[in-house]
């Protein structure tokens, strides 16, 4: 009977845990404007939440990438993550993960980049 209970526990908990992990462990996919708005509503002292912004690189400048998001709005990306296995070049579609640095000119600080 103990074994049955343990098996039932596993059968219930593993899918439940995986479901909850997917709920709480998948970053929201936003436009840059939405990411800025989310950063603004974050409590003072807390780091802006990590989000995904699907972007197309417009041009590569020293220290930054100028991209457009799904709404075709231009914004700047500072990428400080590991070297990617694809080139970060103009016209490349990339899924950037990071957070917004608000300020006089807001920009997206990405720490992960995935081939879109």
């Amino acid at each position, binding site marked *: *009977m103990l074994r049955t209970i343990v098996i039932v*526990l*596993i059968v219930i908990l*593993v899918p439940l845990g995986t479901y*909850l992990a997917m709920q709480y*462990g998948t970053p929201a996919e936003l436009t840059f404007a939405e990411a800025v708005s989310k950063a603004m509503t974050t409590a003072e*002292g807390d780091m802006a939440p*990590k989000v995904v912004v699907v972007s197309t690189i417009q041009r590569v400048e020293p220290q930054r990438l100028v991209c457009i998001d799904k709404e075709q709005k231009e914004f700047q990306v500072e990428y400080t993550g590991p070297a990617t296995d694809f080139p970060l070049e103009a016209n490349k579609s990339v899924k950037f*993960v990071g957070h917004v640095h608000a300020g006089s000119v807001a920009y997206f600080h990405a720490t992960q980049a995935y081939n879109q």
Partner: protein
Amino acid sequence: MIGQILIHVLFGTAVGLTLTAFMSMRRNDQGIAVPRMLMLALTLGLLAAASLLVTLIIQHRFDYTYVWNYSSRELPLHLLIATFYSGQEGSFLLWTLFVAVFGTALMSYSRRHQYEAPTLFFFGLILTFLTLLLVAKNPFAYYYESFAASGITTADVPPNGKGLNPLLHNGWITIHPPILFTGFAAMSVSFVFAMAGLVKRDYHRWISIALPWTLLATAVLGFGIMLGGFWAYETLGWGGFWGWDPVENSSLIPWLVSVALVHTMMVQKRTHGLVKTNMVLAVAAFIMVLYSTFLTRSGILGDTSVHSFVDPGKFAFWILLLFMLTFAGIGAVMILKRRKDMNISRENFKPDSREFLLGIGAALIMASALMVTLGTSWPVLMELLKQPKIALATDFYNRLHIILVPAILVVNALSLTMQWRHTPRKLFVRRIVIAAAISIPLAALLMVLGNSTAWSVVLSAAALFSLVVNVMMGWTLVSRSASMAGAYISHTGIAVLMFGIIATANYAEQHHVVLTQGVPVSVDGSTLTYVGSEQVERHFADREKYKFHIKIERGGSTTTVSPVMYWSDYNQRQSPFMEPGIRWGLQNDLYVAPNSAGTEDVFHATTVQRSGTIQTPLDSNLRVTLVRFTMPMEEGPADDGRMRMGAILKTGDSSEFKIVTQITQSGANMSFDPIWDTIPGSTVGIGLSNIRRNNEDPTQSTGELVFRDVTKPMPVPREQITVDFGIKPWISLVWFGVITMVLGFVFSIVRHARLAKQQPALSDVQLAPSADVKIADGKLSDAHTKQS
């Protein structure tokens, strides 16, 4: 050079220890003197290496990369010593040393129980991997070796080290990490004894031998984890003690497995059941230590934790992975090889027995461990799937534990009302009714007092039920023998800890307050007055540290707390480090965490972009346009040599006029001293208090203008501090609960250490023969009976 040679010699010694212990194990302990000697030599060698590293740190030998990387001349002695384990290399050395000390200390103990050869073999194997890690992450690497690619030579010795992260400048660093590493090292003991039991086909006696050590490991690791929480609460200023961060979780997971193991070991000790479960859990507890080490040291979780991680390099990464997989493999192979032998003790527990409920309790604790492992590993899983990885939100853990924790508490309480093997129904019902009659009204009372959310009602009812049962049952037992009280004291501590969690989660309040010097501010029944700041630790040139004294009047009593803010060279003074000020209390803590400090805005500072127009704060009809900035070469230096810049401004209908500011530069920081002027045709004074130049697009440059009424005396700005003021009700129960839990462990350790001494010698025990032989001889049931 001696250090580097020593590390390589230690690795060789560990390999020698493993090989000779293995041969001795195969030859019935023949030649055991050699591995015994090697174990001792290895421990002494590690002690010498640790002493050498501490000496190098104290002597400020910055020609060693590790010393340069983590220490500095400014550190006091206790922090210099703590530097020893502040980096990866040093902490690996400390862990290795502690494992070796346990291995040496257990030699005579394991000899007494005829486990010496396998014990030495498995300790040797663990130490082989740990010393190999030291070879990969050698704490004695020279600075010129580490930076040879940058053209650094032996002549280049840095004058000072990079120093210790200011957040670690705290007395707790001298206590917390050594305790945690003692717990990690102690976790290897139950694994080693379990493996020895498997080697010797001694599936029951190892339980009694290993139990005091498993209790010790659980107690020490649990205490270490909570010390970390206390440190975070006292120092980091976010107001909590647990954040489900990967680093916290990585200690919690092996602790949870070990707690489950302690309970299933008790079951086997009394019933001879759960034989395989105990083997699996003993292996799992140790593997989880290795897995957690892999998660937090391999760099794989970098970018998903508030803690910082250093990539250890590919070699160390693969050693860590191999370390974990090797021991998981050894454990799995040994258990699978002996699984048929171990099946002889299999029996079904009756649902009205204590062992049945302890089994369920252990399963629930393991479920918690599994879920925390899943959550902590989530970024790794996402990395493998090439998906964006982020750390799971704390709600993931909270939601699961809202179900699991009350269930564990109730099962714990029910198990204690049961007897081993079988419980008479009347006895069980009587105990439950008494406990429920006390705990349910108390839970209802808490609801009346405002404990109204569903989760806290369920959790508090479960904690009360557990508390009442433990006190009730514990009291009955203690009156007979105090040594039996350990489990009850520990469980009581956990219930008390739960009340602390419920109280802080439900009733803690936090307010964002701006305090101006000398101006009392009323917040939630308290009056806060910022008295003033005081610079401390002036003798250190590498920091500028201030205490902000805040008087708190509450309920007729007055107290002063002093949160701290400081700027350090460690981060080039880019952002301040902060520590909260706390008024400790039994009923509540008053917690003041600083956010920022400055002066009050008496000059109505207003930012304006180049070509932008603003209304002046003192006269809404008066508008000012920032035409452009003037450059230093245009303005020339001030009389005192300071650089000058200016801004050309224009009011709605007047001609242009200029205001000038004087700039003092200190490193990367610039301070502006405006020269006041009056806006033509008005009584509004104006000054330029900042310029933020945008070099790439000068039209985006901004200036900060300040204003005052020139008909009034120049206002003197007072100091201001922004804080988060929190009241933490009954948080003392959290600390009190943990101390009580650890105290209970101490009772249990003493009791089980005494019982372990009474274990019969291996030669007097009927060991489980191979299952194949027993089946062939038809002696299966006989063997079981004899062993039982």
